[in-house]
């Protein structure tokens, strides 16, 4: 098919844009006619590339945002965002502490007082955050001396991991939909439905050990999946925007839960407050570190989370469905032209996302909560959106982001106990991190700034973030 167009492999190996100009002249003398040909044609196309600026990128807003999100250097930007958030957090710590504030009233007479007090307060706070999230060095030393039980050493990391597990699921639930070009704001509702299903199976069905847990998890995935499928099919069939429908369905799920847990047979016997029966022990997620100590809550959920992250990575990268999902997410028109069923893909994407969120809800219920309450899922669903964004909608990125958020949440408890700083500060920190990571990308996506491209023109607009 390529008469006379035997392209030169050595040319193909190198980028025409980066080839030094001098090489052309040298080559022109030495090279064979065919080689010259290939090189010259490269010049022709180069010229074409030059005169054709910024080929219009027709894509969904989600795809643009994602591109902007990825084009920023992932590691650097994330680390800087975390550092920046901690600096702002430090200011908030200083401002919110009455004793430290008082030292500022005589700042100009004795500034050292104010600065020392601020430094001590902030250092103490972040030290507590670290102790609560990862490990307390004193406890570690004590454990080696035999004066402290190992349980205390593992407690922080156990807490971190038990907060991480549901966040990894809900983060994936957002990320998968996002890669498919959909904004799944309904993670919270899907997670609630998952928790409800897991709870109902957990305390209503008398099933043997092993089977019970499996059925509960499957029920949660199914319930979340169906609850995600609804906005998916609405979008596919009627074009109803998934952001609107999923937000509304969050309320439906929340109030369904509130209603459900005060019904007879569901509400815990002898209780007047809104709490359901507790799930049978056979449906609980087994604790991983139970032999070390009863307070170590980390459970099988974190292992499931890692497996599911691996599974989603496989799904996105190596499966036919993942190919369709990503293609539809980046350019639905081209996907349709290539024969893909865009509507069906949307519906399926939402079902998969919902199932992941449902598993997240189940992880909470079967791993740590055991009984349904009105706030059983907490904000795990909404935090999933942040985790998904911070993880740049990539499975392993989501796991790392979930780990960070889990650590902040666990450390936050210690922050409150040890430094008397409210847990809300942690939420503020989490929010700030995401704002710093996501905002530049969001701004770039809204204004359609062109991200710096490899080998292309770097515009002044793309710099500075």
């Amino acid at each position: 098919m390529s008469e006379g167009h035997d392209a030169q492999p050595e040319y193909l190996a190198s980028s025409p844009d980066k080839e030094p100009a001098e090489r052309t002249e040298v080559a022109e003398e030495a090279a064979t006619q065919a080689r010259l040909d290939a090189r010259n044609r490269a010049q022709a196309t180069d010229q074409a590339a030059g005169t054709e600026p910024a080929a219009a990128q027709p894509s969904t807003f989600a795809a643009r945002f994602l591109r902007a999100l990825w084009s920023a250097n992932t590691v650097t930007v994330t680390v800087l965002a975390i550092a920046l958030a901690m600096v702002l957090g430090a200011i908030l710590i200083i401002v919110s502490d009455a004793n430290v504030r008082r030292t500022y009233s005589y700042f100009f007479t004795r500034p050292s007082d104010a600065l020392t007090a601020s430094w001590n307060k902030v250092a103490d706070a972040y030290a507590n955050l670290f102790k609560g999230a990862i490990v307390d060095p004193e406890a570690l030393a004590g454990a080696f001396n035999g004066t402290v039980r190992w349980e205390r050493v593992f407690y922080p990391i156990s807490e971190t991991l038990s907060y991480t597990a549901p966040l990894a699921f809900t983060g994936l639930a957002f990320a998968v939909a996002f890669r498919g070009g959909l904004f799944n704001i309904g993670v919270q509702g899907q997670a609630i439905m998952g928790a409800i299903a897991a709870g109902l199976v957990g305390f209503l069905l008398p099933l043997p050990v092993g089977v019970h847990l499996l059925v509960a998890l499957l029920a949660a995935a199914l319930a979340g999946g169906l609850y995600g499928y609804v906005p998916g099919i609405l979008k596919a069939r009627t074009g109803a925007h998934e952001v609107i429908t999923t937000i509304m369905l969050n309320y439906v799920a929340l109030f369904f839960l509130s209603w459900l847990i005060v019904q007879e047979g569901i509400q815990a016997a002898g209780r007047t407050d809104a709490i359901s029966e507790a799930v049978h022990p056979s449906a609980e997620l087994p604790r991983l570190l139970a032999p070390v100590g009863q307070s170590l809550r980390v459970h099988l959920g974190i292992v499931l989370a890692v497996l599911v992250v691996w599974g989603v990575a496989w799904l996105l990268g190596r499966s036919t469905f993942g190919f369709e999902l990503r293609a539809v997410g980046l350019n639905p028109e081209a996907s349709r032209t290539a024969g893909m069923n865009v509507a069906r893909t949307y519906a399926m994407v939402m079902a998969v996302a919902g199932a992941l969120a449902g598993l997240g809800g189940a992880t909470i219920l079967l791993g740590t909560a055991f009984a349904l309450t009105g706030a059983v899922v907490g904000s795990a669903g909404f935090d999933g959106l942040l985790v998904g964004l911070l993880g740049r909608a990539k499975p392993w990125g989501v796991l790392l982001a979930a780990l960070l958020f889990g650590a902040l949440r666990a450390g936050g408890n210690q922050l409150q106990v040890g430094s008397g700083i409210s847990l809300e500060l942690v939420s503020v920190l989490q929010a700030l991190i995401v704002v710093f990571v996501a905002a530049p990308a969001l701004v770039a996506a809204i204004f359609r700034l062109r991200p710096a491209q490899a080998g292309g023109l770097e515009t002044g607009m793309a710099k500075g973030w």
Partner: protein
Amino acid sequence: MNVLYGLLQPDEGEILIDGKPVRIRSPRDAISHGIGMVHQHFMLVPVFTVTENVMLGHEHVRPGLAGYLDRRRARQQVVDVSQRYGLAVDPDALIEDMPVGLQQRVEIIKALTRDVDLLIMDEPTAVLTPQETEDLLEVMRGLKKSGKSIVFITHKLKEVKAIADRITVLRRGRSVGTTSPDTSEEELASLMVGRTVLLRVEKKPARIGAPVLEVSGLAVNDERGHRAVDGVDLTVHAGEVLGVAGVQGNGQTELVEAIMGLRPIVSGTVKLEGRDLRGRSTKEILRAGVGYVPEDRSVDGLVQGFTVAENLVLNLYDQPPFGSRFTLNLNEIAKSAEQRIEQFDIRTRSHQAPASTLSGGNQQKVIVAREFTRPLKLFVASQPTRGVDVGSIEFIHRQIVHERDIGTAVLLVTSELDEVVALADRIAVMYRGRILAIVSPDTPREELGLLMAGVTEGAAA
């Protein structure tokens, strides 16, 4: 040119205006130095009127009333400029309702209201029909007469010869020479590409076989529900290229989309080797051996964020050897991508590079390579060389002729007269949703041009 207009900063060198060196840091600087630019992709707000778009960026405010826009003055300015330069345009029309040619006029008016002396036009004809192009060249002549300078950037040799006083050829960021418009097209092309280019396509006479695509009485609606294709009958035989010529917007897009199952058929039939395609999904039609190069490469042809390799299997990913019902075979996809990159001479860093990093011509080659990967019965190509450089055009044309020679039926839809004359064995002229006539490619150009404008001279029908 982006440097001249202040969008990019020069690394070295200087810009002289009227002999004085200047620094242009932003488009605002450029305008104040009398430089205006008409971009290839229009910078207009679709839901604004012409006047609003023209005033955007330097709004007149009524004195006394803070922030109150003086639309009347802006409107008068639009009317003045359009009259002075013969750019007829309705100042109150919404941009989104206007054809592309008129939108471009608005861009020109926008530049002219800023009192510029030098107008940079970046590929202004890439999106225009032959008539609109002719009108634009007329406008440019008028501007020249009134003392404006124009830098006209284009790939199209005929246009540059028709309008330019001096021609500078750029290749790989360097000027390779300045010539006069008397230079022949062949010489210009070889200057641009750096080697001799065949502007004509060499092809043997067609060996026409059995009918492959039979379209009869086809009626199709456009998005707004208007009849776009109105009773079209066409037959494409194995081993021939049937060209569909016509000015853009006469139903060609809808015709092709209906054939590909992308648009519902109102009435009539489309048959592939005698089997009805109506009601079949696009996937089934592609599987049946139809290759398709969509009209709008960047919207419908490619996923820009995907790698070259992924785009090369965009409609083959679930077929062996690239994948199965559930899984992809990444090794096979990469291997095949390497082969096709070489075979189709696609210029890319690697098969892992995003398609968006390729030039327009190479993006188009990716699409062509993809479609020619599987055995085809019918090849439908819509505007296959729009916005593509001369070298790639030549390559794509040869591929199409080669495909014809191995017995594929080719339906070529194009608004480029040169292209249809060069490639087609028969030419169907489409006008207002109907096929006006099917003529031989030897038909004089004037006659074809008239047919495209809807003049049938009584005889043909």
